[in-house]
């Protein structure tokens, strides 16, 4: 494959909608809000649920409880054991995915029109009445521990975790939501039950649905599915304070290619400059061949297979981050080039042609994201979590087009700070050692 995208898509701006997507704002009889797009041509529904807070709601000393809890939701519910639950779901040909992220727990479901009620009843049991049987806890705990041991030998994970630990210390953002071998080993069933009750609550809930269903039927479905969730749960932690200064940290690891994670503080999603920053970063490092970082580090010099930067505007902190991998022999040169580009865009800004090309791409690609029930449902729930209204769909391209070169360059200077830029490099990079710029 010519380029490997991955992280980028997941972290991109909550996406806008083509005008042809008609979003209905639905409130169920029981008071649950949802966004709906009716799409009757294929007989299934894609349903997306998000519970705001995610693993950042882990209680003191219980790191990893929410992640383990989410992994256990499909391991038995109501009067069904883990295998009975799976057999029932397979027999309905429904898919349920449960994931815990740092800012949200996500539940993604797809089910056929022909057995919708049965699928919803089964999904409900996993959300409302998960069993958390001891044997399931031990089985899944062993999987989590195996995964944590793997992480300790993975250069990307080592780099990410070191960066976040240095940046955020004891705040939940400073550690992995998966927990550590020690914390996960110590978790009890009571901790997992508490994690369930504290996170999957009505006051943290966002919902979208796309597919073969109308507003009335969706309202009934939502009350059945979610009406019995607790009202409230854990409080959110305070915002995280970014504490990392400019420089570089080298973590020795015996592997032929070094991996670097780099970045510094960024702009919040509700910052008035956010969308301008998003466009500027598209030019700097969005990962396409048109970005400056890709052009300078890969196309001109062949120092990497892939490099990107992105705006990580999370609920409790905002950063601009990037990632690159390069041979131990060439990582030092890659770091120099990235630092130079960081300074250049801050000092000299972008060109009118770059801005024009980025606008054309971003506005032209705008409708292309809405090409399936699953993707649309995902986008709609993300927009709600970002506090956007359904109007954003129609306004977004105009906002991008209205950005002037002067504004873009003001925001470039605000966003990129070469003095604050910190690299965490994992590998045996020749000629690189720890440095702090102040």
């Amino acid at each position: 494959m010519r380029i490997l995208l991955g992280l980028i898509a997941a972290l991109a701006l909550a996406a806008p909608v083509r005008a042809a997507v008609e979003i209905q704002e639905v409130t169920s009889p029981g008071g649950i809000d949802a966004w709906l797009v009716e799409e009757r041509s294929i007989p299934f529904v894609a349903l997306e649920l998000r519970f705001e807070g995610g693993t950042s709601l882990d209680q003191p000393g219980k790191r990893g409880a929410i992640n383990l809890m989410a992994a256990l939701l499909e391991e038995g519910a109501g009067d069904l054991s883990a295998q009975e639950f799976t057999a029932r779901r397979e027999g309905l040909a429904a898919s349920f995915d449960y994931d815990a992220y740092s800012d949200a727990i996500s539940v993604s479901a797809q089910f056929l029109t022909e057995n919708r009620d049965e699928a919803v009843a089964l999904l409900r049991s996993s959300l409302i009445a998960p069993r958390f049987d001891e044997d399931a806890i031990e089985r899944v705990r062993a999987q989590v521990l195996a995964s944590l041991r793997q992480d300790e030998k993975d250069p990307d994970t080592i780099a990410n975790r070191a960066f976040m630990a240095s940046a955020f210390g004891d705040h939940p953002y400073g550690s992995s939501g998966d927990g550590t071998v020690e914390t996960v080993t110590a978790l009890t069933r009571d901790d997992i039950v508490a994690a369930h009750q504290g996170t999957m609550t009505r006051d943290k809930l966002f919902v979208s649905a796309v597919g073969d269903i109308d507003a009335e039927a969706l309202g009934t479905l939502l009350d059945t599915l979610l009406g019995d969730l607790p009202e409230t749960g854990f409080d959110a932690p305070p915002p995280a304070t970014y504490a990392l200064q400019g420089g570089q940290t080298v973590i020795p690891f015996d592997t032929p290619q070094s991996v670097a994670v780099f970045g510094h503080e960024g702009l919040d999603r509700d910052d008035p400059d956010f969308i301008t920053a998003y466009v500027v970063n598209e030019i700097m490092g969005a990962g396409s061949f048109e970005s400056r970082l890709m052009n300078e580090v890969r196309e001109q010099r062949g120092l990497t297979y892939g490099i990107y930067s992105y705006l990580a505007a999370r609920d409790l902190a905002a950063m601009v981050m990037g990632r690159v991998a390069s041979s131990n022999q060439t990582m030092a040169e890659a770091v120099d080039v990235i630092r130079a580009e960081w300074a250049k865009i801050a000092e000299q800004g972008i060109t009118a042609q770059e801005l024009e090309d980025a606008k054309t791409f971003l506005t032209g690609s705008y409708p292309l994201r809405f090409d399936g029930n699953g993707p649309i449902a995902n986008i709609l729930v993300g927009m709600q979590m970002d506090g956007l209204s359904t109007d954003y769909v129609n306004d977004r391209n105009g906002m991008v087009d209205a950005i002037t070169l002067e504004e873009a360059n003001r925001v470039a200077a605000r966003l990129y700070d070469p003095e604050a830029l910190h690299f965490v490099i994992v590998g045996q990079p020749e000629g690189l050692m720890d440095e702090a710029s102040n």
Partner: protein
Amino acid sequence: MIRSFLTALGGLVLATAAWADDEVTTFTLDNGMDVVVIEDHRAPVVVHMLWYRAGSADETPGRSGVAHYLEHLLFKGTDTLDPGEFSATVARNGGSDNAFTSFDYTAYFQRVAADRLGLMMQMEADRMVNLRLLDEDIATERNVILEERNQRVENDPAALMREQLRAALYLNHPYGRPIIGWRHEMETLDRTAALDFYEEFYAPNNAILIVAGDVTPDEVRTLAEEHYGPLPANPDLAPRARVSEPPQLAERRLTFEDPRVAQPYVTRSYLAPERDPGDQETAAALTLLAELLGGGQTSVLTQALQFESQVAVYSGAFYRGTSLDDTSFGLVVVPSAEITLQEAETALDAEIARFLETGVDAEQLDRIKMQFRASTIYARDNVQSLARRYGAGLASGLTVEDIQAWPDILQAVTEDDIMAAARMVFDRNNAVTAWLTPPMLEVTQ
């Protein structure tokens, strides 16, 4: 169940099959280029894909990686396009583009607004015949593919182990070479190697055009005849006759040790038949066998090794039938903390033996077939993955009729078919067993 752990193992993807025949139209241009149109009018988007029936298994010995290297170089300009201008033009039209290389094919694609389809065809047709390679681009891009190899393989002990396993599985067939290439051969790839491959294989009579999305077959035909129609067929294109495997007479085993391995596991690959034109029944039985044995929480291996005993933290079975030549059927067990690799392998073998004795659970088979039926509905939501299935199938020697018959062939598989396929495929003389482990002296098991 922990999903990140599964993905960390990599490549254990199960084939699903699904499409809606009535939305698919096919025809062939006069110069021999096959065309498939998949209609989906929900959004004003098209995916334009051009597949060449040429992959890493078609390379000249000594030039491993050249198919993939050429794939990169196709973005480096033509007589009329500067290096990078192809992708820049796609981006300026709001689209995105990429490409990929496999054992049996190389494919290029763009996702773009439906009214830009003609421009995509114009540029793709241009680089089929007018590639222009500069020395500096050749050298820089060779470093890029070496960095790609670093990222995908050298930095990942499991990927290094899989290379060794494949090389041992295929005694004679080029599927034993990695798609990305052996490093020492990649370092010697040059303009001549790339252009030789280009001139031999890049021609309309060796290509498949797939257009999926908001278009009609008539629109595609008109545009395809305008842009691809004038390109001459390559009269010297040879049939795809590759060397075949000799009888395999001895089991192979390997132990791959690397200090970067945190979680040991054992995996075994058996040589297995692939889907062939007009003859997909055995492949269908193997597809269902993989689901029965390792397709999730209720599968035979998971039930035995993770529920009845706690031998494993993960177990699985995998089979990909879409392949021009002999493919493989794989098993994997990731042992629990106190279990050795030998104990895990012994438990795996015992479970396979028990399955061969007791046979198929009829209810489990019904559930799997139900999911395959439903996948024909869900698949309509993702037209790009439909396009990829047609492309991969056609480039792997199947016909459109074969691809469309596949769902019914899966439904028709009986318990006896599955057991016959299992008895045929589980022959240790046709297999490689690999252990992935940290250096053994340091293992406390």
